[in-house]
């Protein structure tokens, strides 16, 4: 038996994943490795299969063929919740935040800590939620004034930060981000890039889906290019140009 080196063992390893919808093969035999502290960008035109690939990794779809290994152990997931409990946190484009509730509640939504009041009934422990939220935001070097404001009153960048903090708080072993800068202005995009760098420094691997080549070059260590369900490129970000990438995406190279 080969000995495994903990540093070279990928955090996530997807092998020969295939997903069909009727006659359409959305993802065809795609493999993907991602290591600790690595940022992998998933590039490709609309319909290239990026989202389908991600949805298999985040438990939304069950692959028709192929295997997924998390830290060396094969995993199967029946639902996104199961993926989350394994440490695969997905931040969707819409962020899935409740805008009427504050940042602390959103970070703990569905997993709220409770304490007993007068030994009678379990009440949500808001102070603990606030303290823990502050901790995780500090860890990510994020400063949001007044965490008790509803998300509705926060900027796009702050919302993105809350969504990332939620993923990280629950000890994400892998963070998947779907178009994280799509709805943001340029200064806010920069802040999201900084957040991804912070995650990287803390050894959390990130898969980012983006249409935005600037995004990709700002944060990615490696770029995986998909076209019509196939993986057509897997290159270190420093070794390609915008034009190379576009050529791979549209298939003219």
């Amino acid at each position, binding site marked *: 038996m080969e000995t495994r080196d903990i540093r070279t063992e990928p955090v996530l390893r997807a092998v020969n994943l295939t997903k069909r919808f009727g006659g359409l093969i959305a993802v065809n035999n795609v493999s993907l490795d991602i290591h600790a502290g690595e940022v992998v960008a998933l590039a490709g035109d609309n319909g290239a299969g990026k989202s389908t690939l991600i949805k298999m990794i985040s438990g939304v779809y069950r692959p028709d063929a192929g295997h997924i290994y998390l830290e060396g152990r094969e995993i199967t997931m029946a639902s996104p919740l199961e993926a989350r409990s394994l440490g695969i946190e997905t931040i969707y484009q*819409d962020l899935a935040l*409740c805008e*009427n509730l504050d940042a602390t509640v959103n970070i703990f939504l569905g997993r709220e800590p409770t304490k007993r009041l007068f030994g009678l*009934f*379990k009440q949500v422990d808001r102070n603990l939620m606030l303290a823990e939220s502050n901790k995780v935001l500090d860890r990510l070097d*994020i400063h*949001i004034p007044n965490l008790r404001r509803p998300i509705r009153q*926060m900027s796009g960048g702050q919302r993105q930060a809350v969504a990332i903090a939620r993923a990280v708080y629950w000890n994400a072993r892998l963070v998947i981000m779907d178009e994280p800068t799509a709805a943001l202005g340029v200064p806010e995009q920069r802040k999201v890039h900084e957040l991804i760098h912070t995650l990287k420094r803390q050894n959390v691997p990130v898969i980012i889906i983006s249409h935005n080549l600037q995004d990709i070059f700002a944060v990615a260590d490696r770029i995986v290019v998909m076209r019509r369900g196939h993986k057509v490129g897997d290159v270190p970000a420093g070794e390609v140009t915008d034009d190379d990438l576009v050529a791979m995406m549209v298939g003219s190279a």
Partner: protein
Amino acid sequence: MRLQSIELRSSRFWLDTLSQIWAWLFLLGMVAFFSVAGEGFLTPFNIQAILANMAILMIIAIGQTYVIISGGIDLSVGWVMGMAAVISATVMNRLPESSPLWLVVLSGLFAGLLAAWIAGLVNGILIARLNVPPFIATLGMFGIARGIGFLLSGGMPVPIYVRGLGFLGNGFLLYHHPTAGWSFLSPPPGLTQAELRNLTGYFPFVVLVMLVLLFIAHILLSRTKFGLHTYAIGGNKEAAMRAGIPVARRLIAIYMLSATFAAIAGIVYNVRFTNGAANAGEAMLLDTVAAVVIGGASLFGGAGTVIGTLIGALIISVLANGLVILRVNPFWQFIAVGIVIIIAVLIDQAREKFAQE
């Protein structure tokens, strides 16, 4: 890294503040006006009467608060209340005459609750599992509960022949008589019929029941996971689902809770008026929705409080009472309440529009 936000001292800030306190101001203004303009408005007797008269409305409105915060609406509350009142009245009458009063009331309550829970469960399953819009599902139940109530009662109110029931429903915790002094739970013994006229009661039972329910519902909504999930579902159902909140189960529980409060209101009606009528809650739908919306809940879901609903119910009841004291034709009350609802919804919409910008 610093993610600064622009401090919101803008029109949105003022609108938000206004939307939160206008109902309080409105209530205070109304109380001040009626106290000055109406003779006998600001007396302990009249204030207790206002509270006792609003108890049934308030109890149903508590359940409606949960439903509206979750992003739905329960149109069936009034007729579920009537159905529960008829069933509970029938059960109370069937018990042997020797049964103690507490057993009669509890049996009636339980029978009414059982019927209401079925209605609430059906509402909940239709909405949460079969994705029927709440407006349609509860409109269906509106008709069904109405029909069942009238069928069981033969279209007539069911008089309840239980001794002491009316005393319970209209009784007070404390009594005071100028000569006989204070007494607890029942009037001082030995008073003649003429002397009873000088008797004053304090803390009507129905008001106490209302306050206890208010307190429990307030804690449940503001302190527990269930309450928090109600807000989350109303704010963003999809996000609540992805966060692992059992949305369908919570929604079913919310509609059953609404039916529960409707049934309790039905039993309060029985005990107060010693009869159970299928149409006892006919007027309740408009008033409960009005109380909840005036109290700051959003018809878009995600906002509202039990205390806010209390303010809303107080506004409606003070308005009704004050108009009677001023000898204004009571039909004006409907118009006044209608106007107040429209104002409340306009404020809610303006707030929502600003929030989206």
